[in-house]
């Protein structure tokens, strides 16, 4: 028997596989395809204080081994989430995390405070790294002082597990991770999308309405893996790794680099059943390598 359970401080995951915000809707979209209770957790769509229409079409461009998106945090606001969506999904037998975003610190604080009241939401993922909003979002996560201030203010009102999602669009991600840790973050998740761009040479137009967007998919995996390893060497709080994970082998690589848990993002679009397949694949890997506890693999890369 292998033990896949991991603890992110007080947050217990039955296995290290979660789904990434913005790629899994509210879980309901995947109910026809998988049993959601088999996952360690799901992170639902980015939620803001007020309704957001998001960016105009076109919002997506395919790229080699990946895609760019510029959705821009379209959502109906935290009140709609609490009153309408939460009652529909709270029965899921897994950890439901809400990704919380905002344009100004007050929005983050008010949204987090409202989510704090929901019994079946044990954690939030504080999104200080969305590249697709004009104000706030990534701007908070690309500077140590502003990252620290938003984490500090949210920490005052949010009493449960506070995960902070980091942006890769920085010079040194470990400095931002340290700032979040110092202000009381319980864990960090990384990476959010990399800022990118695509152009149609024939029409000479950008492919996204916002010109730039967030790059995801297997093309970002080496960057994400490197950043997880850097952050692992810089902080003591647990790390949730994501960025281009397509299968169990990718997931194991992130865990070896230092992630206690992982998130599956873009791969959900290619195979709506991939998340549970990754759980199975991790089990097979552990049996094959005679690893009893998943926790023994965290940060367990060997020297060259």
């Amino acid at each position, binding site marked *: 028997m292998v033990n896949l359970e991991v603890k992110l401080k007080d947050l217990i995951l039955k296995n290290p596989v979660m789904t990434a915000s913005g790629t899994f809707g509210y879980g309901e*979209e995947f109910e026809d395809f998988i049993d959601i209770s088999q996952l360690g957790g799901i992170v639902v769509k980015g939620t803001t204080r007020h309704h957001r*229409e998001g960016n105009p079409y076109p919002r997506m461009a395919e790229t*080699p081994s990946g895609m760019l998106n510029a959705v821009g945090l379209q959502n109906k606001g935290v009140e709609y989430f609490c009153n309408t969506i939460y009652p529909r999904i709270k029965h899921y037998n897994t950890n439901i995390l809400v990704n919380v975003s905002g344009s100004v610190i007050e929005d983050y604080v008010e949204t987090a405070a409202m989510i704090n009241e929901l019994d079946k939401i044990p954690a939030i993922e504080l999104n200080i790294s969305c590249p697709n909003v004009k104000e706030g979002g990534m701007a908070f996560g690309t500077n140590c002082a502003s990252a620290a201030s938003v984490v500090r203010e949210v920490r005052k009102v949010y009493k449960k597990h506070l995960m902070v999602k980091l942006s890769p669009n920085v010079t040194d991600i470990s400095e931002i991770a340290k700032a979040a840790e110092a202000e009381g973050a319980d864990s960090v998740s990384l990476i959010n999308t990399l800022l990118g761009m695509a152009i149609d040479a024939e029409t000479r137009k950008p492919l996204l309405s916002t010109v730039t967007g967030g790059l995801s998919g297997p093309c970002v995996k080496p960057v994400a893996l490197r950043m997880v390893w850097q952050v692992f060497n810089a902080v003591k709080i647990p790390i949730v790794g994501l960025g281009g994970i397509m299968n169990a082998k990718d997931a194991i690589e992130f865990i070896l680099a230092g992630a206690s848990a992982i998130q599956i993002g873009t791969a959900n*679009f290619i195979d709506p059943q991939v998340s549970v397949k990754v759980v199975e694949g991790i089990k097979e890997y552990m049996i094959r390598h005679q690893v009893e506890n998943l926790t023994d693999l965290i940060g367990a890369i060997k020297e060259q």
Partner: protein
Amino acid sequence: MKKSVQDFKVLRKTELNDETFVIDVKASTPLPDIKPGQFVNVLVENANNTFLRRPLSIHFVDYEENIIKLYIKKIGEGTNKLSELNLGDKLNIVFPLGNQYSIPKNSKTLLIGGGCGVAPLLYLAKHLRDAGNQVTTILGVRSAYDAVELDPYKEYGRVFVTTEDGSVGEKGYPTQHSVLNEKFDYTFTCGPEPMMKAVAAYSKSKAIPCEVSLENTMACGIGACLCCVTDTKRGNICTCTEGPVFNINELKW
């Protein structure tokens, strides 16, 4: 209706011309009830620059053979790879996706398709005929070379063709065809947006309901990613789940 992801097998491949082909893919378990206007999201394997699935209209469903027909035009690497599939190859499909065209009863219906936008109209024509409607189909193409696969539509009603060069049928666009002088109760369309907008304008001028099937760049196809939104009077909504079929009154056209 429950969605699923399944491996289908290529049972038949029919080349209509150098760019257009129909593949019949057979499911391993009995097909669910599939509605006209719905689509599938297919995985293209071994294509370096085709990362995401390709959304394709369901052209026809034959429950006896347990097959879905896909009408495909080669427009890029993904559709080119699909054209290279051999009989017996597997094709991984997420389906059935999206909403459907409305099916009125005992009415005069007009279907207008442009280019490979004709794809969902054959299955629609069958459902309309089965519900007691009179079906008139106009297929608009560039030239006689593209006027392929007309016979199947004739099973369900009258078929007219327009070509831009006049090489077959009436010369011009489908919205200029003389049959439009007749009185219809409903219009249904799929094709290039300028053509659908012309069909919408025609329908508005005659005060008859019009449904259009929209195309969009999709990632997930199941309403999770919010990439494929259409700007409607209700705001940005997903083409993949709340469409692809929209009544023109919902759109800002």
